[in-house]
């Protein structure tokens, strides 16, 4: 092992540029035509297919796979985009084993589902690479809609509204659009600047103005948006991070995993990113896995992920967990941090094993200590600032009824910031799309039409 890997503390350049290039390469490279055809031939074209039911955006999976099998990948791509305009990103990031692939009848048949995600990427890559936007807008309606948040929910909503002839302005607090597609998703899932390419392609429909660096609550108020626009959609995600509430949390080198991940996504030179030798990640969701894996890929020697409940309760899918362990991440279940130890700077974390008694999680007497020069917190995100006047659900998210209607007339919400559904890219896309349909129906009286 090289000296750089073994140096203690948080240092950059643990791995060579070549090693980094290998580590951060596309984790699931695209299928070529032959592979796609062999896989497409496996689909049974099920009646009322369970995979469609399992897809939050209801993509007609058997149809698009049949279109691949008949060598019309662009038609397949259109089947996908009609239901899910971010079908390209979803093909890369969906935890398919819990969604479409998890319900594929081939699991029962021979324990191996049709590789729907990989086929979806095959079908969508071509149209996006082609550049020309394949949808045309309907006649202008003269209606103007404000979308706050350029993440999957906001983008999906904006595209559907633009397609229906409305004029849309998207406001986003950050410098680049894309939301967590750009700042969150693990680098090896979406390589070569795909997130920005996809947004640019989506914007190709026209009728959407993107205003980045504009934050609701800082630069804009909901009242003015409501006054100036015919409707408002909120897709602002979950901007704040839950705290550990343990001793030593404020020590140096204890930080939020989402910040580390976003830095990594934005880094031009990953070799310049400092990372610890002994890294501890606290949490059991996708964010925890992504932080742990990417710390390892940057060259950390020991990376341990600690989750307080059991394995099957982890937010990260089995596939994600397996991926993490295959990269050398150690996963400990059933332990919770009780103190961050050190002198101003973190040196170790003290954990206690947990027990479930009467359905409640309790700390046990037994525990262990893990040496740590860097600690990432990934125990969940929440809505940033309470938005005046909007009712919140018990979960702390924006309360909605039906397709994203909030307690305020003319204001819709979807994606992670709104209650209901899993916090997934594909769910955000579905909710944004459905809200757009509802907005359109409200503004024009046209019937709701949701493909898929």
């Amino acid at each position, binding site marked *: 092992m090289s000296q750089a890997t073994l140096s203690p503390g948080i240092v950059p350049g643990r791995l060579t540029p070549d090693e980094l290039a290998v580590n951060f390469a596309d984790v699931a490279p695209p299928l070529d035509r032959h592979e796609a*055809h062999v896989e497409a031939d496996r689909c049974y074209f099920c009646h*009322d297919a369970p995979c469609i039911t399992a897809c939050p955006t209801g993509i007609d999976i058997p149809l698009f796979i049949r279109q691949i099998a008949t060598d019309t990948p662009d038609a397949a791509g259109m089947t996908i985009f009609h239901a899910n305009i971010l079908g390209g990103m979803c093909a890369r990031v969906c935890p398919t084993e819990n969604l479409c692939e998890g319900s594929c009848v081939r699991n*029962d048949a021979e324990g191996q589902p049709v590789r729907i995600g990989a086929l979806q990427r095959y079908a969508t890559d071509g149209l996006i690479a082609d550049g020309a936007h394949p949808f045309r807008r309907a006649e202008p309606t003269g209606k103007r809609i404000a979308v706050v948040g350029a993440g999957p929910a906001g983008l999906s909503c904006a595209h559907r509204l633009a397609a229906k002839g409305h004029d849309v302005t998207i406001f986003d607090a950050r410098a680049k659009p894309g939301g967590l597609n750009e700042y969150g998703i693990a680098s090896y899932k979406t390589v070569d600047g795909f997130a920005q390419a996809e947004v640019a392609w989506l914007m190709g429909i026209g009728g959407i103005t993107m205003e980045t660096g504009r934050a609701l609550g800082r630069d804009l108020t909901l009242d003015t948006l409501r006054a100036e626009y015919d409707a408002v959609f909120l897709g602002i995600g979950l901007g704040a991070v839950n705290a550990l509430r343990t001793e030593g949390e404020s020590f140096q080198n204890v930080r939020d995993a989402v910040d580390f991940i976003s830095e990594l996504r934005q880094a031009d030179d990953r070799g310049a990113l400092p990372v610890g030798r002994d890294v501890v990640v606290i949490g059991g969701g996708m964010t925890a896995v992504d932080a742990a894996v990417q710390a390892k890929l940057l060259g950390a020697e020991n990376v341990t992920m600690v989750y307080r409940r059991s394995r099957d309760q982890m937010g990260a899918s089995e596939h994600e967990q397996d991926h993490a362990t295959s990269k050398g991440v150690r996963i400990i279940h059933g332990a919770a941090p009780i103190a961050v130890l050190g002198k101003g700077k973190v040196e170790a974390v003290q954990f206690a094993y947990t027990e479930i008694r009467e359905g409640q999680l309790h700390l046990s007497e037994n525990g262990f200590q893990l040496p740590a020069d860097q600690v990432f917190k990934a125990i969940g995100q929440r809505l940033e600032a309470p938005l005046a006047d909007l009712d919140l659900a018990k979960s702390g998210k924006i309360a909605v009824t039906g397709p994203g209607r909030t307690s305020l007339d003319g204001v819709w919400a979807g994606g992670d910031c709104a209650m209901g559904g899993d916090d997934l890219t594909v769910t955000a896309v579905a909710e944004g799309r459905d809200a757009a349909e509802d907005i359109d129906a409200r503004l024009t009286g046209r019937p709701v039409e949701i493909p898929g």
Partner: protein
Amino acid sequence: MADLRSEFIGIKSPNPFWLASAPPTDKEYNVRRAFQAGWGGVVWKTLGAEGPPVVNVNGPRYGVVHGPDRRVLGLNNIELITDRPLEVNLREIKQVKRDYPDRALIISLMVPCDEDSWRDILKRIEDTGADGVELNFGCPHGMAERGMGSAVGQVPDYIEMVTRWVKQYSRMPCIVKLTPNITDVRKPAEAARRGGADAVSLINTINSITSVDLDLFAPEPTIDGKGSHGGYCGPAVKPIALNMVAEIARNPATAGLPISGIGGVTTWRDAAEFMALGAGNVQVCTAAMTYGFKVVQEMITGLHDYLDRHDMALSDLIGRAVPNVKDWQELNLNYVTKAVIDQEACIKCGRCYAACEDTSHQAIAMKSGRVFEVVEEECVACNLCVDVCPVQDCITMRELAPGETDLRTGIARGDYANWTTHPNNPAATAAE
């Protein structure tokens, strides 16, 4: 172990698997390796008359129909008879036969439809040591335009005439290879028998266009922007060939005439089916062209295994299904079955539902949790669900016990009765 040794019209071979006359049998190099691989016999690629050989196209000669995963289901070709000089073929045939005396070696022939041509060619092949001749009256393209091949095979009188010449000028056993490009295959078979043929072989290839190039707007294979029909073979033609074999086997005028079964034989099972319908042996072309000579090994072990399991000799198999091939009107209309779905085996794909629902029966119910159940009141026992279900044996057809009520018709299952006596049959009523 069952004995696979076969004797067909007096020609002995170690097994009933012969290679059909086609490119795999076009030269000594191939035929030697085929024999080494275990083939029981070969029918040499069709020889033409003395003189400059025919020429083939120099562009693609095959078209294909693929199943899933590009499995070859059907092949068509526009190849002609051998394009190598007659003397070369004859010399090679002699050498191979000398080295493989235990294998069957048949010479396929196609010459112009006049007596001299046939007398001449028969004389030329006399001293090759070959075991017999096969008259190629089947090639449907190219040669037919020149008055040979299927142009002869489509006119029973010509078949009879040429067969008579062959029997007159040669002592060799004579197989007449039939074309399927006719309306009633019994007529050419009867003609062959009248002419003195020792056997018929069938089928040769079926007129076909396998696909159209949608950029060039021409049939495939496309030669310089044009295409002509070819001859279709491979697994896709097996059902057509089986029917024709059965028609000849159960036709009183041709019953007992030995048959060499050809068309889509790919596995031991295909071969066994041909033989059950009356073929004394089988010939194979496309399977060998697709997978190589080695496929015969599976055919040999599979047939062994099957005969052993049923404690049958090869001769017991031949023709065993023929008495059960009937006209539709002889089928028992009181035989009632109902589909049964094995819920354990079911993977819940819903294909049976889609098929039955959209095929006028609506006899499968889709219940919550994707449970698929047969509605016996609606099930007409068509078997379509069984055919489309991706899981083997997941759906089966249950036979109603005698006296059991068919929930669809409300009628108890009765004794054998067919259409000829059915009250709905106007002819039956008239007969009374």
